[in-house]
């Protein structure tokens, strides 16, 4: 058998059920891989004792012959998920030392299904970033290199992406507010799905922008995404926006038959200055879907260009409200105060010390667009344009489109530090193809489809109808089979 840490979830599940390996052996293989991969800075809190205890419990359960698909599967958990008794910092100095007294619904569901937690994964601070360069833990590093240069794994789920791509775990949890699962998945040659808003509970996930945040799996292939999403999804009374809908058997829906499906190609996603190889990959993707029997049609989503500016009103506005909770009183950092400092100085110094520059900027920007006199001009206008962006999608789905094919990102992964002198808007453009999906609450998946001239992975994105993750995964499964992406990064770490 291949090195156990390189297995997929499906491969490991089948081997476990046949008794060909054990959860303990899988877990030890991953722990060994993690130990040798400090250079990637993907795992930032290690929980080997928990992992081995969970693995032994999973092995006992497997022996009874009644074990769910995720039983015994070693995972990495993004640092945004509250894990009981285990440091949970959202990659921020603000939450240094914070150990939740409770378990997020998603990690609880995964652990109830028998999954194993190897540790917590690096990310951008409070999930605000597209390169994992705003983390208090330092940069996570992409296992893929271009000409020996250190590249970003993307963000905000950069540690999750790097860990899965480097086979440090079988899969990882991610979260996606504007593209934070799909962009890093594309940058590291792995698969990531953002489910429909409301499919996965947000309870116990450190909040960034509550109307946009959704958790999802980051995996080595589409089948694994189906298996893991199944375990993460479902109604949760503790999240009032969680949908009271049954979760279908996603893996059973991977028939590979997409004959007659109508795939839309949105003309507004053809951007000036887009690299030719991404343009080519996109066209090849459309050809593959056509070859599998789908009908490919040109569509229009006319408000696409306004998605990023809408996002950069709504996300900071919600962040400024959500992050008001970090006041140095109930949990997290509190600044050392000078003699005579009152409660206002405590708030101001605590938040200046605890939040990094990007988080401060977004919180203040959000404060501004919500402030008296600007609320209508910015926040309310953005919410109206958001309605129009969603209406664009409603219209094409009403016309019988089953899924929409786009590039996942406007470029391959860039070098760490390359964007340091760019203004924030340049960095935000990374999310130009992904952010529309969050604004409209839709499911979308990024999957690897090729390499650029420098040997860096490139991804395609499929956007689905609301609640139709099963159909979306099936179309992605067909595209995955046609693309035949099997490259792995050469090990340098």
């Amino acid at each position, binding site marked *: 058998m291949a090195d156990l840490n390189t297995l997929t979830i499906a491969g490991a599940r089948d081997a476990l059920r046949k008794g060909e390996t054990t959860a303990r052996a899988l877990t030890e293989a991953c722990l060994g891989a993690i130990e040798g991969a400090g250079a990637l800075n993907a795992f930032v809190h290690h929980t080997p004792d928990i992992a081995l205890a969970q693995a032994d419990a999973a092995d006992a359960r497997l022996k009874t012959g009644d074990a769910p698909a995720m039983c015994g599967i070693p995972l990495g958990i993004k640092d945004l998920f509250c894990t009981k008794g285990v440091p949970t910092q959202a990659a921020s100095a603000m939450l240094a030392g914070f150990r939740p007294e409770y378990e997020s619904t998603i990690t609880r569901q995964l652990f109830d299904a028998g999954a194993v937690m190897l540790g917590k994964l690096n990310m951008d601070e409070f999930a605000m970033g597209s390169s994992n360069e705003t983390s208090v833990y330092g940069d996570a590093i992409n296992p893929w290199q271009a000409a020996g240069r250190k590249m970003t794994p993307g963000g905000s789920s950069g540690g999750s992406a790097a860990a899965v791509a480097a086979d440090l775990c079988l899969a990882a949890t991610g979260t996606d507010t504007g593209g934070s699962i799909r962009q890093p998945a594309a940058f590291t040659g792995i698969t990531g799905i953002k489910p429909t808003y409301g499919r996965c509970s947000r309870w116990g996930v450190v909040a960034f922008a509550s109307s946009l945040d959704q958790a999802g799996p980051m995996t080595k292939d589409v089948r694994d995404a189906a298996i893991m999403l199944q375990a993460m999804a479902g109604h949760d009374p503790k999240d*009032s*926006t969680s949908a009271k809908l049954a979760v279908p058997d996603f893996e059973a829906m991977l028939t590979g038959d997409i004959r007659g499906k109508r795939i839309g190609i949105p003309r507004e996603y053809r951007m000036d200055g887009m690299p030719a190889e991404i343009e080519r990959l996109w066209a090849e993707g459309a050809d593959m879907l056509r070859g599998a029997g789908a009908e490919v049609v040109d569509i229009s989503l006319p408000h696409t260009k306004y998605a990023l500016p809408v996002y950069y009103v709504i996300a900071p506005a919600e962040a400024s409200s959500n992050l008001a909770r970090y006041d140095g009183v109930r949990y*997290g950092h*509190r600044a050392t105060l000078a003699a005579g400092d009152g409660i206002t*100085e*405590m708030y101001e110094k605590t938040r200046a010390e605890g939040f990094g520059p990007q988080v*401060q900027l977004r919180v*203040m920007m959000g404060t*501004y667009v919500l402030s008296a006199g600007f609320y209508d001009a*910015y926040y309310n206008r953005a919410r109206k344009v958001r309605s129009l962006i969603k209406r664009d999608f409603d219209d094409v789905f009403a016309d019988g489109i089953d899924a929409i094919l786009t590039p996942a990102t406007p470029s391959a992964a860039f070098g760490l530090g390359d964007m340091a002198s760019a203004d924030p808007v340049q960095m935000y453009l990374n999310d130009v193809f992904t952010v529309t999906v969050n604004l409209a609450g839709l499911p979308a998946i990024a999957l690897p489809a090729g390499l650029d001239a420098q040997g860096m992975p490139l991804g395609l994105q499929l956007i689905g109808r609301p609640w139709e993750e099963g159909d979306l995964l099936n179309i992605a499964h067909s595209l995955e089979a046609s693309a035949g992406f099997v490259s792995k990064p050469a090990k340098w770490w």
Partner: protein
Amino acid sequence: MSIDTETARRVAKLARIRVEEDKLPALAAEFNAMLGFIEQLREVNVDGVEPMTSVTPQRLPRRADVVTDGGIQDQILANAPDAREGFFAVPKMVE
């Protein structure tokens, strides 16, 4: 619309984030870069468009107004930077 140093100072105050005086001009410049980007929303015709409140059409659920948990004072205080005698402790607020 352009943000000056005075506005940047006011926003920082509203957000309860201490920004040193010499950092305010750079902050104002960053705000202006973002606002310049957002300005393009002005060209969209939004007449008669409802602002989005929920991306999915579902109604927020209601439940009976009853206590469903409690008795977890120790857990609630466990992560507090300063907890004393069962309370969160903060600097003196009133003389």
